[in-house]
């Protein structure tokens, strides 16, 4: 019985991994692009390349309602179906945000996996400091904890007023969408 169960799980995982490998990732990305378009979200990129489990994008831009939200020099999407990550490198936010936060974000990692199917977690760092948080897909809530940099504390202290200081002294922010 144990042997059969092990074989079943082994084959299931193997199937998922093989399927994730053969998955037409480029076409899936194009599909997501089309699905986002009616919500006035446009994800544009200059170059895309597919290899194994990953999809690499060069110079991507995210537009919302025609306004550029951010540009990203390099990004990589890795999918194993049960565990998926998006790495974003060298992000520059829209200069509309320049009065609120520093525009340069060095790294951002977004994780979605079976270990937490109702949440999308993220962490990143940049001129603003370090951030970690999650998006609750059921409650439609964004929660983040910010560890501000010296620059953020000095130049963008007004933005920090919108954050809540918790018992541990961390600055947190919650937004329901």
């Amino acid at each position: 019985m144990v042997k059969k169960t092990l074989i079943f799980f082994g084959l299931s995982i193997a199937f998922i991994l093989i399927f994730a490998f053969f998955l037409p990732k480029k076409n899936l990305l194009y599909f997501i692009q089309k699905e986002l378009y009616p919500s006035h979200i446009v994800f544009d990129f200059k170059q895309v390349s597919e290899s194994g489990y990953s999809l690499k994008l060069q110079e991507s831009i995210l537009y919302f309602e025609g306004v550029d939200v951010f540009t990203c020099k390099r990004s990589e999407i890795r999918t194993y179906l049960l565990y998926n990550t998006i790495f974003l490198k060298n992000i520059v936010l829209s200069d509309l945000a320049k009065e609120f936060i520093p525009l340069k974000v060095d790294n951002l990692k977004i994780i979605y996996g079976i270990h937490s199917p109702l949440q999308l977690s993220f962490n990143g760092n940049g001129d603003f400091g370090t951030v970690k948080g999650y998006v609750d897909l059921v409650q439609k809530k964004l929660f983040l904890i910010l560890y501000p940099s010296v620059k953020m504390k000095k130049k963008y202290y007004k933005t920090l007023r919108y954050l809540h200081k918790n018992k541990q002294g961390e600055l947190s922010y919650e937004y329901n969408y």
Partner: protein
Amino acid sequence: MNTTIKTFLVRLIFLGVVAKILSLFMYLVLPKIPLKKEYNFDITPQYIRVHFNTLFGKNSSVDMNSPAIYITQVGDLVLKGLYGNQKHGYAIVANKNNPIETTIISIGEVYQGYTLQAIYIDHIVLEKTGKKYSLYLQKPKNDHLSVQVPLQSSSNEDMIHVYHDDISYYASNPNAIWKNISIRELKKNGKIEGFKIVWIRQNTKFSQLGLKKGDIIIKANNKRLKSYKDAIDIYKKVSKIKTLSIVILRNGEEKELVYEVE
């Protein structure tokens, strides 16, 4: 080879084939090309003010004594409104085929080859290739179109003055804007038709802009505001521009507000 391993491998190969067939099916169903970002080329002429009399660093002299031809239409141009005096002021002109689309020109400015030279109580003087034309005001038509012809004025009272210091202050303190005014997009069939003034605090810089609660801003500098991008483009440029013209819908009628940034 052990039978169990053999069976496992056969099943694995079978699952691999199934996975490949499934992915091929997905490939056939999913889109093959990326979504092309639609670049909406705006064919609306840009609202540009060129003061030709100061462009080359010297003031051009206007000879008011030379004879002028008195007509109510010059080329396709008709006069819809004016304010100012002989030396300073603005005229509102339109194409006779499309009288709703108006353009404001200042003294010394060239429009469709005609230079605006002077403004009088009921006409303006235009000059082209040495010839002068007096263009008289059109009588407003009482037709079904609810287009409000801008008020005629002999002074600069209609021009609202805005100061760069205020713009810089509000650009660096956006929260101060939303403490004084609330603007919301107005959508029809999912498309933005304009931006509505939901609320405005009285006796503030914003109430002095001539805006009222319920006004719908539909145009800025001759450009229709059909998206957030259009509005943000104006916001981005506002610190650099010298004149801003907005068209609002008030009680179903269009009204143009002109701001001079000092």
